[in-house]
């Protein structure tokens, strides 16, 4: 009886070891999913176009200093440029950058349709409608999924941005990237907000209707965005450009580090969890030497013995993985809920991650159990029967 309890304790500890490994795998995997989705979204967003912003003080593609719309006309004249879409993008919070690992809430003002159907990033509407050119001059907004959820607003509600009231006319489906945290405004409204945010001395000299923070340039058909970006930088003074390739180079290395951390955690859990399964199975087999001897003597084949023990080890792995997944999912949900008010939604637990975690732990357990099982199956049945 005591022996059985001891075995139970050891099995529990082994399961716990795997649980911790899989828990870490699930939590970090979910974080990687979220970040990869952001990066993927950005990569898709920047693909096939050139973002032009003021060269004097831009941060991460979101310009701080405004550009004149005259620059847009200058760029339109460049060979290979098809469409130039001006927009005003800025942080939603007046007090500037908040500490955040994810994308902060943004406002983006653009004249609906000014991309002339060149924008390919897909947006789907959970409620309401898209902005139209007719919205220029009025104070309406389309909110990203996270924003709408965070402030609990829907169409018809009023949404206050920098002390200005906007009427919500649409809410987007989640995209897992930037638009989730974005309030889309008519360009004119965004221009006003932007100018209002400037220090009074500068503010007076600026005509709100003549500025933009970013010019999105869509190249003509069959023209490489890189080539267009080079031509723009050569022809227009004081601007900087960003293409899909630039984005991938800047952000891709950060993602690679994160993925490396994830692989590291997976390897550690592989080693720790695997060794603990090997240990448990070796001990459990030593305790059951006689039982294995009986089974071999009365006609249990080596293959049967291996199969039984490997199944047992796989089951230990599966149980550990399932508990680890459940705990990891709990952490992901709790952390997301806790972070949602401040916009720090860091985790995305996908089916792929869940299935991988379970498969990984089960296969890990089975592989770790294989060697002790093989050893057991090769025992001499007579010696095993005599084993005390």
């Amino acid at each position: 009886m005591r022996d059985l309890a001891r075995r139970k304790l050891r099995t529990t500890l082994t399961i716990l070891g795997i649980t911790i490994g899989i828990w870490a795998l699930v939590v970090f995997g979910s974080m990687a999913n979220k970040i990869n989705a952001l990066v993927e979204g950005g990569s898709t967003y920047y693909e096939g176009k050139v973002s032009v912003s003021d060269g004097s003080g831009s941060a991460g593609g979101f310009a701080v200093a405004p550009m004149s719309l005259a620059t847009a006309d200058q760029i339109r004249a460049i060979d290979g440029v098809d469409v130039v879409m001006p927009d005003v993008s800025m942080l939603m919070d007046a007090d500037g950058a908040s500490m955040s690992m994810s994308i902060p809430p943004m406002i983006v003002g653009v004249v609906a349709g000014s991309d002339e159907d060149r924008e390919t990033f897909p947006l789907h509407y959970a409620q309401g409608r898209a902005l139209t050119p007719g919205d220029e001059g009025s104070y309406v907004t389309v909110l990203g999924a996270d924003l709408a959820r965070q402030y609990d607003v829907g169409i018809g509600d009023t949404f206050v941005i920098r002390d200005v009231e906007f009427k919500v006319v649409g809410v987007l489906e989640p995209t897992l990237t930037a638009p989730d945290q974005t309030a889309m405004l008519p360009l004119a409204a965004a221009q006003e907000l932007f100018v209002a945010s400037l220090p009074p001395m500068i503010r007076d000299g600026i005509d709100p209707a003549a500025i933009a923070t970013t010019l999105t340039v869509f190249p003509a058909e069959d023209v490489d965005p890189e080539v267009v970006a080079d031509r723009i930088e050569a022809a227009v003074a004081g601007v900087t450009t960003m293409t899909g390739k630039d984005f991938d180079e800047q952000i891709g290395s950060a993602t690679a580090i994160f993925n490396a951390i994830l692989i590291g955690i997976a390897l550690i859990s592989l080693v720790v969890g695997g060794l603990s399964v090997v240990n448990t199975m070796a001990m459990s087999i030593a305790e059951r030497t006689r039982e294995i001897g009986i089974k071999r003597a009365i006609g249990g084949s080596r293959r049967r013995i291996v199969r039984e023990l490997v199944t047992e080890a796989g089951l230990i792995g599966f149980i550990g993985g399932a508990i680890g997944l459940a705990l990891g999912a709990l952490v992901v949900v709790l952390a997301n809920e806790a972070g949602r008010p401040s916009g720090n939604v860091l985790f995305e637990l996908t089916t792929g991650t869940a299935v991988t975690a379970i498969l990984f732990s089960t296969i890990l357990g089975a592989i770790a159990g294989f060697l002790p099982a093989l050893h057991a199956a090769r025992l001499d049945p007579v010696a095993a029967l005599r084993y005390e």
Partner: protein
Amino acid sequence: MPLLEGRNLRKTYRLGRTNTVNALRGVDVAIEAGEMVAIIGPSGSGKSTLMHLLGLLHGPDLNHGPRPELSFAGQPMVDLGEGERTRIRAREMGFVFQDFNLVPTLTALENVALACDYAGIRGEPARKAALEALGLVGLAERAGHRPAELSGGEQQRVALARALVNKPRLILADEPTGNLDSERSAEILALLRRSNLAEGQTIVLVTHDPEVAGACDRVIRMRDGRIQPAASAVPAGDTFVADDRLLATA
């Protein structure tokens, strides 16, 4: 033709690096189908080793001396691989050991059904056969109990049911009554004798108990790894004593 026939059976065990034990020093043995044979001898005489060779649990030594031969039901066994020997053990042989060797985590029924499983019979047929075998040893109503909940005598009867369940041609019993009092020993012997008579099963049992040996048809005496030439008949009186007990418990 004998069911089991062995020639030049030798077996040396190695204990440590230099110390070896000549457990069998060249044994010729023949066991006829339907016989109930006892192998007796002092400890270290090689009687268990002989049983392990006959039960295909070990192979005889092949070097140093004339080539050993072992046939079971007319088939040569010496060159068979481990897988094939395991298959024959599962289908054609039943084993009973001294220490009531049951799997502790399985019920009586599951222990018996395990032997069916190894012989390729599963599911309902295996359950029926196992219940029938447990009925044969008088333990049908204890089918759901685990070994720890059974007495020593009951455990050995479960082990016997496991040995009988596939109706094997040969039953090998290594000191089957070694850990039982005389009453329980008699029960086990009576059950062995009954299946020997009813099913014509050949039974080889290893014992150091002269009373148990006396209940068998024939006695093989071993000493120092060899069979004693004087295969003397068992005194008649002993047999009657055993038979009386057999009748009393049957």
